[in-house]
């Protein structure tokens, strides 16, 4: 288990202080795929680097299995009451694998040499190293590339080599810093499948940093949403998707499920223009209301019309979730009652544009369920 308590990290730049991580406390269970999502500059990269002390936090504590509780005081890491020596820090890092957006393979080393890097100078014999490298290459299905240089590999293959290298020393934790952000969709998918596979086969804990909700959606068990150095929301991925609380989380969820809607609104498309008496709404259905006829029931009971603009549904870790955007029209009171009814039935309903509000067509989100 990894436990982070009250972690802080501030960069002192010429242009002023940047609070990259502010009072972050999270627990990451063993064998979990833990996602950390946020826009660039939210502090997620710094946070993950604080786990293996590539960045030394200013204060707080990090507890790692196999190492113990590392407390930070005055920008120095303490273990068992003593300042950690560089040697202790290095050996702690060996227990945590890390992969990067740009792979960071050594270009002048072959695939074999890259993967052998963490194994050398650790008392292993040449034969043991060769055998281990072959095992690792089999694990990432790249057996035939053992003597190839990174420049001859595709992006996806490079990341596979990087994963093999990160796993070489048998770490219990793998940190992934935007590992799929530089890859095409196909390679992204294959790397995500591989990570999930490794998580299941080896029981390795994976901490996954990304700015793409799709990545979280496809493999993470839990997610922390970061904004301005703080964790604004944290929980199981389905819960976060189904009931996003913070504004930024709602943005991530909506962009993932109803990605086009934001664009339509930004472009002020005719599809999302509302007349007086109309309301543009976004509805999110979670597992306990997907599959029921809530919408038609509401429309029939309260006598409003609904023009569906966008709708999408998917399975998230085995549970269904749906999103829909549409324009409700009809009697103002009836619409209100309809919305009430939907909310009572656990449909998260958000009025994005209200034709009756001032400056209707370009109104910002007015009400939030």
């Amino acid at each position: 288990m990894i436990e982070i308590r009250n972690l802080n990290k501030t960069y002192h730049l010429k242009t002023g202080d940047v609070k990259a991580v502010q009072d972050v406390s999270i627990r990451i269970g063993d064998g979990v795929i833990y996602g950390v999502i946020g826009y660039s500059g939210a502090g997620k990269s710094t946070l993950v680097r604080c786990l293996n002390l590539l960045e030394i936090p200013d204060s707080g504590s990090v507890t790692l299995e196999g190492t113990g509780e590392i407390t930070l005081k005055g920008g120095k890491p303490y273990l068992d009451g003593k300042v950690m020596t560089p040697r202790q820090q290095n050996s702690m890092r060996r227990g945590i694998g890390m992969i990067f957006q740009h792979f960071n393979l050594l270009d002048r080393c072959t695939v074999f040499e890259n993967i052998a890097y963490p194994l050398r100078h650790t008392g292993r014999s040449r034969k043991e190293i060769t055998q281990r490298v072959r095992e690792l290459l089999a694990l990432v299905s790249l057996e035939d590339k053992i003597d190839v240089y990174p420049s001859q590999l595709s992006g996806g293959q490079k990341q596979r080599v990087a994963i093999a290298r990160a796993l070489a020393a048998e770490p219990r934790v793998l940190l992934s810093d935007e590992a799929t952000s530089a890859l095409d969709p196909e390679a992204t998918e294959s790397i995500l499948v591989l990570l999930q596979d490794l998580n299941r086969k080896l029981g390795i804990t994976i901490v996954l940093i990304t700015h793409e909700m799709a990545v979280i959606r496809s493999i993470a068990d839990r997610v922390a949403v970061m904004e301005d150095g703080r964790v604004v929301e944290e929980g199981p991925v389905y819960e976060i998707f189904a009931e996003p609380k913070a504004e930024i989380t709602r943005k991530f969820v909506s962009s993932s499920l109803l990605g086009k809607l934001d664009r339509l609104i930004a472009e002020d498309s005719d599809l999302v223009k509302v007349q007086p008496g109309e309301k543009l709404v976004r509805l999110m259905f979670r597992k306990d209301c997907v599959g029921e006829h809530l919408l038609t029931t509401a429309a029939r009971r309260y006598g409003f019309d609904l023009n569906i603009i966008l709708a999408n549904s998917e399975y998230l870790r085995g549970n269904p979730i749906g999103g829909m955007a549409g324009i409700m029209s009809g009697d103002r009171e009836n619409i209100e009652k309809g919305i009430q009814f939907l909310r009572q039935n656990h449909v998260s309903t958000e009025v994005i544009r209200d034709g009756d509000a001032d400056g209707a067509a370009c109104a910002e989100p007015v009400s939030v369920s």
Partner: protein
Amino acid sequence: METLMEQLAPNLYLYRDKFYKSFAATVEMFWKAGLIAFVIGLLLGVLLVITKKDGISPKPVVYQVTNLLINVFRSIPFIILLIFLIPLTRAVVGTAINVRGAILPLVFGVVPFYSRQVEVALSGVDPGKIEAARSMGSGTIGLIFRVYLREAVPDLIRVTTVTAISLIGLTTMAGAVGAGGIGSFAINYGQNQNHPDIVNVCVITLLIVTFILQSLGNGLSRRATNRGLLTRHHAREKEENV
């Protein structure tokens, strides 16, 4: 060959023994000073890269002092440096003339330039690779030898070639103050005795040496960049079979 020399450069033919000796002296100065400067330059270059502010082992004082010394020695023209260093050379090696006396000023002349070049070459190593190696538990020594020096090899060969060529230039200059070698031969027997053929042959000799060094550097650097797959593969197969 000898008759050809006699016809084309009669004066050189007359002093051919001197010419051979001078050439040998230049070669000796070049490799001795070069070897020492290579080691010191690499050391200082590495020191600069690792001790700078965002280096892997930041030590502002060490960096500032090294940086200042390099700047100072780089800005002194070599011919002045030669004279300036005479007392130090005498104190260290006992003489300020001949090849023996030339090595120290040559090292002083070339090290600042070379350290800077090494620093630039090493700074070109992607910080991401350093970070990855750190995440795998490499310490400062590991990072220097397994990442910096290794990944920068093609660039290091390039800057070493440039430095070697400029060192040839410096050795001829050292000749002007009594070090011997091709430079002093061209001045004493060519220019001062009005034998243009000697000057010309010296120029051509240096051109050839420079050309050879440059080709060698280019070739090595290219090989270091695209290392042959097959040879590496076979080397490893053999290693495994043993």
